[in-house]
């Protein structure tokens, strides 16, 4: 099969017309560009966090049939309580699943930031500094730690930590919340309760040929094709 020059030019023109700036907010990194300042005076980002104690990883040849976390955990009781509280705010209980804090995902956060691997150690600094910042900011705002605030006071902070374009002073706090949020998503949705919440179907052997999309999925696909003015691919009719 060969394609005409016209066809080639057609898809090239399409590609060229594509603006990379046309990306969603979702993909945007925390920008240093001046965003709107939050409705409070931002406290300084903590200069440092407690150094990590020496710990060993699970090594290159762990027993895969009996997984274990060999490293000691990091969070103090109050820190863990704050993480659990944040978990229940970031991914709260609703009709489909419990809150991430209540479900115990805080233990995963602690396991993660305590791991002696480079990515996790970077995250450790970010999360511990973020927890300290939250408390410091809360004390300035209402005279107590984050956990001691009212639901409304905590919500104000979470809102400020999830703005689309943070102010320069909020860049690090927002980066902290980005990381914590993504860790909660990973920790929560990899659990059975989280998979059920997503409606995930899988992880179950099916004998015989792979059945492919259900009639409902096929109907949805056909409607999507129609809305995009695309033809049904020949391979789907086999």
């Amino acid at each position, binding site marked *: 099969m060969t394609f005409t020059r016209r066809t080639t030019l057609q898809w090239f023109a399409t590609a060229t017309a*594509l603006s990379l700036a046309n990306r969603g907010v979702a993909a945007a990194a925390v920008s240093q560009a001046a965003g709107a300042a939050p409705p409070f005076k931002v406290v300084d980002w903590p200069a440092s966090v407690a150094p990590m104690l020496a710990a060993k990883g699970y*090594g290159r040849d762990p027993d*895969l049939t009996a997984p274990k976390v060999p490293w000691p955990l990091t969070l103090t009781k109050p820190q863990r309580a704050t993480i659990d509280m944040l978990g229940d705010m970031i991914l709260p209980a609703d009709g*489909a699943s419990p809150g991430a804090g209540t479900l115990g995902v805080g233990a995963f956060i602690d396991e993660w930031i305590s791991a002696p691997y480079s990515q996790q150690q970077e995250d450790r600094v970010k999360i511990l500094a973020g927890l300290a910042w939250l408390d410091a900011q809360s004390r300035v705002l209402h005279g107590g730690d984050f956990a001691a605030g009212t639901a409304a006071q905590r919500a104000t902070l979470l809102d400020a930590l999830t703005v689309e374009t943070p102010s320069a002073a909020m860049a690090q706090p927002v980066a902290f919340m980005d990381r914590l949020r993504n860790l909660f*998503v990973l920790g929560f949705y990899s659990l059975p309760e989280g998979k059920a919440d997503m409606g995930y179907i899988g992880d179950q052997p099916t004998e015989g040929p792979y059945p492919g999309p259900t009639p409902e999925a096929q109907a949805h696909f056909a409607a999507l094709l129609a809305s995009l003015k695309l033809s049904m691919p020949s391979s789907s009719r086999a």
Partner: protein
Amino acid sequence: MTKAAPKFADTPVDVIIVGSGAAGGMAAYTLTKAGVRCLILEAGRDYDPQAEVNMFAPESDAPLRGTGTADKPFGYFDATVDGGWQVEGEPYTMTEGSDFRWWRPRMLGGRTNHWGRHVPRFGAYDFKPFSRDGLGVDWPIGYDDVAPFYDRVERMIGVNGGPIGLENHPDSPAGCLMPPPKPRVPELLITAAAESLGIPVRAAHTAVLTRDMPDKVAPRSACFNATPCTRGCTIGAMFQTTTSLLPMAKATGKLRVVTDAMVSRVVTGARGRATGVEYVDRKTGQRHQVTARAVVLAAGTGETTRLLLNSGEAGRGLANSSGQLGRNLTDSTGASFRAFIPGLAGRPRYNEDGIGGQHIYIPFWLYEQQKRGELDFARGYHFEIGGRFGIPAEAALPRVWGKGLKQAVRNASGATINLTLRGEMIPNKDTFCEIDPTVKDKFGIPVLRFAFRWSKHEVNQVAHGRRAAHSVFKRLNGTILDPDLPPEQIMTAGGEIIHELGTARMGADPKSSVVDSYGQTWDVDNVVLMDGATFASGPHKNPTLTILALALRASERLATRLSSGALA
């Protein structure tokens, strides 16, 4: 220091095979079936998938939810054990300005325990690249020479797939392939968009059984459409030598396997022939020598090359009269593109596990344009297709908290699609490996030093691939999630695709190649190379099927020579 070999040495062997992956496994299988007594020396540890693979545990059972780390780069449950990008006490070095990753599995079965399973055939152009565009060199063999071996290997290892019917993409004759699995919704959607842009999509050829493969010794079952293949497969649906060729070869009674045996050099005798090899017992540190009539090197491109460079007269290496040993190193190019497709958001759930990886792929389709000089790069690339239900990519989620985030996850699950580029690299003079003059590993064996550089061809190819991928996403009203960076910065590092090839290339002329088309070194007639080191070029098509086919061809030739007394 050098001790007599352990107890098995009193049983003579005909052939020593260094390595137990695709090439070593095929050599052992073919040679033992022909009645040849073989000894496999594997640098890594013994490995039994039946006992060690954890197929069913959820990722939440693993530390860090199974996320890859420096200890287990492809995730906690990944089949690769005791090896990887870094091996304790076994460094490699790089020339200044080079970035090269050297993947070294240290386990029985080598890389076949964890691999991509995408097994396209090379086509006629792929064996004669110089004739087509004047770059690199031609292979001394053509597609027709290899085709019968492709046919046999596909039936032997079990490959599913469909017809392709495209230029330079040969189809398999009837009876070679098992039926491919049905495509899933994201794959169908990519197909519809790609076809509307003139980009073809075809059933991928994948080394996963979709029908049972009975065997007295190593029966293998059809894929049950669950569990990640990269953990290894206890039902044998995915091809790996540890559940197929190795047990079958052992059952002949002609194969001995010694693991933890790090071969340090090929030992040569009076007539310039190899008499055997020297290896270090990884557990005791003791050196042993074993002898045989022939030595097969199947240690993987880098290790095979290192072995030869460390053999022979000091500094020159063995089988290197051409000076090509270590030169012509290539890896595949790699880049990943992804987008959030609003039309897929919240789509109806069903089981999309399928046979593990992609069911369909995008073969290279622009040979005519290339021939007419309309492309700014030589050679081709393909896209592997991804996108299934699961936890959405971070970039596909909005910066929100609370119930809105939960809703966003539900919405975005299954709405991100990926196109992963794999392309051909043309050998260049700045990319090679050599012995580091000063650094040795913990066994005292001099290590490899790599030099690596992509050329304009590869950079332009990746830039082209990005435009093509983004055109597909755009046609689907997708939100592109890729960073806006120059192609050099979105390309994988050398070695990262784990397709390193070419450092002891085959050819028709001993002056410009290291081995003949049967992997036999021009200089030492009883040293035969069977792994990717022998490739004269590294087409974008994943190399394992061709490694297996050439190893089968070379092993049969070696068996014939052994039985004819040529290597007495």
